Every structure is written in C-alpha cells, then in structure tokens.
C-alpha cells in the first residue's frame, strides 16, 4: 500500500467515525483531517511556485479619463444565502498566460 493510499484509508475511517459527533466538532475535526494534504500543497507551491504570474491587471500603468457613471436602482432582493453577488466578475482576470494544465 502506498503512503497516499494509506493516508486516504485512515482519512476515510476517521470520517466515518466522526459522523456521529456534533456539527461544530465535526467541522474542526475535518479541518485537521485535511492537514496532510494542505501541507503537501503548501510545500509544492512554495518550491515550484506554479501559481505565480505577473499581475498585469494591477502592475501595469493605466489612467481612466472622462468617466461617466450610471447607477440606477432596479429592485430590492431579500433572503439571499450568499454573501457575494452571484456571477460577480469585476475582479475576473482573463489574460493570464499561466495555466496549470
């Protein structure tokens, strides 16, 4: 059995045994259960820096001029469960050259 398979097996056992515990305890326990995977990912990106790229969107000089703004109230929405607007894309970056695969 490989190391990763062994870790996964233990992982599954504890997940199964943790099912009867209370909600909060289960959540904190789940965070600890991910510690090995989180450590691997942290070290991988620290050494390989595969997530790094030039932040062209903020590091390139640009000036906006003659700004005209339009902000028109449409309606109120109530009882939403998400703290962020669905489909918000004002921070989206499409021109990054770096891709993982």
């Amino acid at each position, binding site marked *: 059995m490989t*190391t*990763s398979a*062994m*870790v996964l097996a*233990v992982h599954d056992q*504890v997940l199964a045994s*943790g099912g009867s515990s*209370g*909600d909060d*305890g289960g959540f*904190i326990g789940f965070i*600890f*259960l991910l*510690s*090995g995977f989180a*450590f*691997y990912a942290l*070290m991988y990106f620290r050494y*390989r*820096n*595969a997530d*790094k*790229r*030039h932040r*062209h*969107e*903020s590091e*390139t*000089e640009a*000036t*906006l*001029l*003659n*700004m*005209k*703004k*339009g*902000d028109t109230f*449409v*309606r*109120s*929405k*109530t*009882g*939403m*469960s998400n*703290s*962020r*607007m669905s489909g*918000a*894309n004002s*921070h*989206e970056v*499409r*021109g990054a*050259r*770096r*891709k*993982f*695969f």
Partner: protein
Amino acid sequence: MENPDPTSRAPEQQPLSSPQDQAPPAAPEPVAATNPVSDSWARGADSSEAPTPEPDDDATRVIQTDEGATDGLAKCSRCGATDISLNVATGNLRCNFCRFEWSAESANDAFDLDGDIGKLLGVTVGSGSSDIVPSTDEVMTFKCSACGAEVLIDTASSTQARCHWCRNTLSMNQQVPNGAVPDMILPFKVPKETAIASINKFVQKRRFFAHPLFRAEFTAENVMGVYLPYMVVDINAHARLSGEGEHQTRSYTVKVGDSQQTRYDADLYNVVRDFDVHVSDLTVESSSDRLEQITSQNSNNIINTIMPFDVENAVRYDSNYMKGFTSERRDSNLDELSPIAFTQAEDITRNRVNSTLGFYDRGVRWTQQDVNVRGQRWVSAYLPVWLYSYQQHKSNGKTFLHYVAVNARTGETMGSVPIHQGKLLLVSGGVEVAGIIAAIVLTALGI
C-alpha cells in the same frame, strides 16, 4: 438562495449613501442584461464609440528606429577600439581600452514614446517590431572592415561576434525582418554578484524538500545574463462597461432546522461606466517559447512573474549592450500578440474601474464590455534577466526545465525548485496522521 421578488423597501433599507460620488452625472441609460458576458474590442483610428473597421496595412505608421544605425565595427569615439561593453554599475557603455563611457539615446526621447497616449490614433509600430519574414536567415554573414575576413553572427543568441582573425568586434544594429534587432533595449542594472546572492538565498530557503540531485548540482554561479524579447504596448481606448451591482442593506440569522444560517438583503442596481482609458507600457512576451506557460510542462511562468520592468528607461538599440550576455530572438508577430495584449488591457481596465464601485459591496457582474481601441503603439524591446536553469531528469524518462530568474532592473527574484517527492509525501503523511489524531482527540473532547 435568492429571493427574486421585488419588495418595497423599508426606510432602514434605503441606501446609506448613493453610489460612489453620490450624484452620477447624466447616467447613460441602463443596458439590458445579456448573458453570457459579451465583450467586444474594436480596433480603429476613429474616436467615435461605434466599432470601426480595422484599418488596412497602409494606415499603420512605422517609427524608423534604426535610422543611422550601422553594421560592422562600432568604434569608441575617443580611441577607435571596438572592445565596448556595458558598465553595469553606471548603466553606460564603456570602452574597455580607454575607459571612456557614454550612453545610447533614451528610447522615449528618440522615438517620442512618452507623448500623450490620448493622441495615439491608428496603429503605430517601431520598425523593429515588423512582421518576421520566415525566409530571412538566422545566421548573418558580415565582412570585417578591419581585415576583410567573413564573420558569422548567429542572431538566435546574439547580435555580435568577434572576428577570429583580427579580434575586432562586429555588431549588427540594422534591422532585418527576423526579429533579432529590436527597437530598444533596457540595459542590465543588477550586477551578477547580486543576482547570484539572490538566487542562493532563494534556493537556500527551499533546501529541505529539494531534490537531492539538485542540491548536489546547484551552483548559482552558473547564472546567465539573457536579454529576452518583449513587446511594449501603449493603448488609447474608449470603454463602456454595463451590468448589475448589488449593495447589501441588511444581514440577519434565521433558524433552519437545528442550525442558524445567515441571510442577506440587498439592492440591485444597473451599473454603467463610460470612459477613456490610457494603458501605458503593457509588456508582453514575444517569444513563442516564453508565451507557453503551462506549469505542468514548463516553468516559464517564473520568468513572467518577475515583470514589470522599468521600460521607460530603455535606450535605443545598440549591440554593444549585449556583450557578455546572450539573447533570445523574437519570433512572434503583432497579429499573434494583439489578442493577448487586448485581453490583458481589458483586465487592466476592469481592475481600474473597481475603484469606482466601492458602493457595490456584494459585487458587480458586467454583462456587456465594449472597448474601442482608438490608437495603439507597439515597440519591441530586449529586457534583461539573470537566469539560472536546471534540467531535471525524472524517473519516467521525461525532463523538466526549472528556472530561478532575477529581474536585472528591480532585483525581483522567483524560481522553481525540483521537489523530492518521496520525502515530501512521507512528511505530508506524518502531518496527516498527526492531524487525524488531533481530530479524534478534539472530537472525543466534543470541541
């Protein structure tokens, strides 16, 4: 889950303040939302908002950047020697025979690159950015004017060569359509010793999980000074973004079954931003190899990360700046690089507009993004990088080229260090076991 029913707003749900800057001037009429997001980039010399047809080649203005440049022997104006190189400490060219120093003319001054971007109309390109003609030779032959011998310059890695008979240095400064001679060059500023120290420091911090072969073979002194090819782009555009934004008016908790959940109320607005945008010195790799940044296959993203460069300090191209360094030839044309530059300019535009969207604390969803490019200027440049490379031979027979790169202007350092996977997996497994034990203890204690 959203409740789409419009409800009358209670007084406390009125916005505390109207959107940024209170009274929006003559609001452009809201645009009906469309999905998916629609973008359009129009290129043209017209300043009207309607997209204009792309200008034909005749409309392209060319800045002749190699005017007066000569190939062959480039001599020191004081003593006539040809042994000239960059003095990194001063940024000047120095005659290695009489120590006289001088600098090439600033590219901004020589080609008027720092003029008002708002006055840019149509397409302007430096003559060193012209399309590459595939049949152009990569290896050029020059006749040494000192002794008459024929000297070859391999433009794939340099624009200089030494005459093997009389030891004079021959330079290539006139542009040929193979991408070897750019419009401008940014000289090295960070000394090699500083780059070596930066690379050493970067790697030392990552030794524990580094591959043992890499640790044994790593020698920062093997770093090479490389001029890499880039395109520097200025863009004058008019943009109109429209969409929807949400401003939170209330948050509260509700009981769902046995648990408490948070709910949010918000006001929905139609948002329009209409403006001119000037993008200055957007820098894009112009070597097809460097443009490929798939991190599972290469580490070119490392070289990308050390941008930006202070390209405003670039000088008119002079091959003498290349002495002691190597270079990579540009092999991409404007039509391949334009989509990349325009997409990045769009990212920059969206990023800058965010400063006007502070009121919309739940976010903004742009549904229509129209950008009309009124003017664009392209200039090719060699930018300086200290590059340490390490070819990793994997157990599956494949190889992977890792880089540690230093921006030779700002000193910014980034790198990729090969990992000892077995060791990392073992330690990660140990951490996982410790985490599992901690989870069991916490669960048993009911925490």
